[in-house]
């Protein structure tokens, strides 16, 4: 509902008085006591002392007396009053004189509630007579009335409301309301509370002023003054008053902090909205997911997708070991659909891809594939992947599954900065081309059964090449790239064909003993070969020559992203961390991922690197490990200490590739 015109009758709050031990149970607002008595018939105590400095207090005290309270007013003058009692009030001490009471009612004046007025863009002005902020200029569609506008008398309020509701001018007030200025007494050792919720005292504000946090915005954040759930409704003006006294200024010169919604506590679900359950953090879902579930796959979040980790019931570690053995002996069949497939198309595509890649791509021939890194401008590895050249001016970047969105953004950014954006276009077609990978010594025989119309012999279709084929009459893209070190075929097909492709490959693989494998097995297979995962085997400082890829840095002549960063002192520092392998003594378990390689005596250990990937290799029947290790310790055969949770273990530096370093046929 959005009314054209609004009368704001939000009322006023009592401003608490600042005095010693004013947080004791039994100290409360005078107005609240009147509300209890008048609205609910409840007497808040038996014998009350009242400290109030405004012209309504006499009337309020009369009401309380009618309700049966023994009420006495007192003026603290220039002394600091002190509430007596620990768990409840037993008296009030002023000028060394003790007044017995069980309740202390205070009011340092009424404060119009103008939060909504401020949210609507209304301004405030300090009114000396009422000692309150009153509404000043503001939007024409909203008009504060009554206590919100500084009209505290009931008869005046009714007349004002009636007149303004009719569209008439605001009538003059018949009774005036006045409040005396209330400044806290500074420099005492007494505990005088300003913010009752966040335990801010007058001394805290004095400290803030001493440390030059005199701006109210700084004071608020330094002391968390007014930042509790009441949003300063009881504390802000008292805090401003204290800061004004400390600086010798008027409250109007100190100013106010920003009034922010919400005015009242709001259920968290209002903010949460529809972000619940599966919508809290939606994952991308595989077209093959129903088949994976039927095959009892363990599904986990990986790179923003729900992906199979392993297939079958039982211990995931043992299942993964079986899947690794299957892939090494026959073949594993993997749903690799999340693999990025970003097309770069246009007459300047070649120069652009060459620029955004660390490796030289300009010389890549059509139907060929090359491994490469993308770097940040500082030379740090952003992502790796392979680039497939589909034609003279058509490339596909097959990047890491988890980095697709980031790579697309990076490519778009460079496309529009320093290149001809009308001559290069970036299309993310990842969702359009689900991919099934067949990897292992029997992969070629299995793929051959599909009759894709592609010659699969290595002489005709070597490693790191691409072919277009047909599966059941539909175009498919076949890449010979491998993340396992064995012969692999990555077959990308239209979404409508992926179920048929998956089923056909499983059917063809069954006679060989091949079957589906999950990401857990893939992680081990790639680690056996020393193939890295960006973000796991690299960190925010890793440059390509730390990872064994130093050639383009030395030889590539064309400019590329990160070139300058690779020749800085940082890039050449002698203690940079290289990617290495680690081996442990026979019979020992794998090293923990994240464990530190340390130097120095036990009393002063220094980290020289850390374990990035660590598994038990079913192929080698021993632990394998990759680590980032300081350059001077990275020579093969070096003995190092590995520290984890108080224990130190021995390891020996080895090649990152610990299984079959031969080239793939």
């Amino acid at each position: 509902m959005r009314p054209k015109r609004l009368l704001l009758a939000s009322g006023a709050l009592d401003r608490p008085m600042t005095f010693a031990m004013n947080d004791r149970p039994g100290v409360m607002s005078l107005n609240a006591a009147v509300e209890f008595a008048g609205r609910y018939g409840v007497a808040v105590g038996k014998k009350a002392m009242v400290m109030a400095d405004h012209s309504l207090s006499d009337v309020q005290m009369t009401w309380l007396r009618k309700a049966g309270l023994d009420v006495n007013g007192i003026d603290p003058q220039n002394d600091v009053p002190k509430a007596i009692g620990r768990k409840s009030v037993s008296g009030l001490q002023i000028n060394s004189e003790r007044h017995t009471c069980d309740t202390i009612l205070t009011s340092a004046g009424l404060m119009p509630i103008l939060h909504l007025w401020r949210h609507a863009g209304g301004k405030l002005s300090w009114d000396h007579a009422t000692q309150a902020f009153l509404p000043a200029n503001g939007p024409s569609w909203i008009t504060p009335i009554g206590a919100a506008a500084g009209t505290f008398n009931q008869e005046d309020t009714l007349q004002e409301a009636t007149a303004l509701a009719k569209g008439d001018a605001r009538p003059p007030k018949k009774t005036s309301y006045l409040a005396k200025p209330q400044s806290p007494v500074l420099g005492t050792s007494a505990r005088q509370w300003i913010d009752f919720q966040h335990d801010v005292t007058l001394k805290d504000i004095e400290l803030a002023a001493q440390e030059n946090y005199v701006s109210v915005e700084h004071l608020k954040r330094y002391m968390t003054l007014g930042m509790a759930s009441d949003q300063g409704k009881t504390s802000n003006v008292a805090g401003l008053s204290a800061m004004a006294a400390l600086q010798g200024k008027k409250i109007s010169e100190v100013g106010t902090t920003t009034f922010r919604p919400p005015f009242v506590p709001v259920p968290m679900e209002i903010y949460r909205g529809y972000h619940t359950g599966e919508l809290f953090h939606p994952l991308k879902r595989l077209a093959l997911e129903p088949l994976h579930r039927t095959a009892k796959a363990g599904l986990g979040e990986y790179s923003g997708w729900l992906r199979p980790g392993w297939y079958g019931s039982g211990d995931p570690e043992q299942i993964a070991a079986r899947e690794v053995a299957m892939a090494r002996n026959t073949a594993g069949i993997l749903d690799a659909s999340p693999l990025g497939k970003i097309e770069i198309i246009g007459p300047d595509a070649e120069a652009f891809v060459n620029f955004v890649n660390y490796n030289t791509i300009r010389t890549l021939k059509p139907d060929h594939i090359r491994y490469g890194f993308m770097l940040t401008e500082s030379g740090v590895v952003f992502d790796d992947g392979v680039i497939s050249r589909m034609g003279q001016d058509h490339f596909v970047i097959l990047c890491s599954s988890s980095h697709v969105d980031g790579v697309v953004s990076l490519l778009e950014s460079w496309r529009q900065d320093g290149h001809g954006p009308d001559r290069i276009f970036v299309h993310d077609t990842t969702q359009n081309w689900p991919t099934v990978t067949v990897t292992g010594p029997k992969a070629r025989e299995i793929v051959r059964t599909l009759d894709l119309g592609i010659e699969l012999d290595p002489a005709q279709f070597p490693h790191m090449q691409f072919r277009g084929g047909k599966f059941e009459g539909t175009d498919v893209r076949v890449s010979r790239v491998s993340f396992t070190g064995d012969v692999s075929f990555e077959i990308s097909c239209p979404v409508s064909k992926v179920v048929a492709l998956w089923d056909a490959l499983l059917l063809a693989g069954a006679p060989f003993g091949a079957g589906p494998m999950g990401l857990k097995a893939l992680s081990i297979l790639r680690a056996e070969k020393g193939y890295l995962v960006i973000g796991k085997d690299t960190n925010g400082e890793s440059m390509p020559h730390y990872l064994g890829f130093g050639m383009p840095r030395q030889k590539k002549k064309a400019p590329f992203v990160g070139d300058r960063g690779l020749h800085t002192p940082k890039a050449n520092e002698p203690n940079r961390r290289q990617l290495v392998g680690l081996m442990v003594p026979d019979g020992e378990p794998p090293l923990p991922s994240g464990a530190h390689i340390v130097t120095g005596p036990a009393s002063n250990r220094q980290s020289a690197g850390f374990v990035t990937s660590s598994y038990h290799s079913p192929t080698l029947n021993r632990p394998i490990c990759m680590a980032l290790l300081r350059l001077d310790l990275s020579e093969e055969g070096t003995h190092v200490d590995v520290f984890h949770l108080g224990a130190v273990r021995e390891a020996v530096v080895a090649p990152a590739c610990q299984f079959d370093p031969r080239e793939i046929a």
Partner: protein
Amino acid sequence: MRDDSSNWNPLQTLDADIQTDGVAVSKSYLRRQTIVSGPRVLLEFEFALSWPEIAKGDTYHLSLRRDRILAVEDEDLGPDGWDTKTNQAVSDASGAFEVFEVAGPRARSFGPRGRITRTFQIGFSAFVRV
């Protein structure tokens, strides 16, 4: 890696049309969707539609950004890659998007309604009185 299979409901497919409150939702089965980018693509496809225009016929083009359209059921576009005659980049996107048809007198309210907060349901954090 943890098995989170049970944290996520199996994928649901829209097997039957949804008919409710002036809105009918049904799944569309399209043969061909194509992303086309080029410096003059919005001039070449001057009838490319954007919200809230209504597509007419089986073949239409949606304006995605100033240099990109999504062609729906347009069989006249060339193969994937760069078309030197039209200066356009073409990529098959037939399986990239699931397409739903939303029809009925309250069809336009379908999108916004999907985002309405259930304010007055009892939540975990607080109870809102009505």
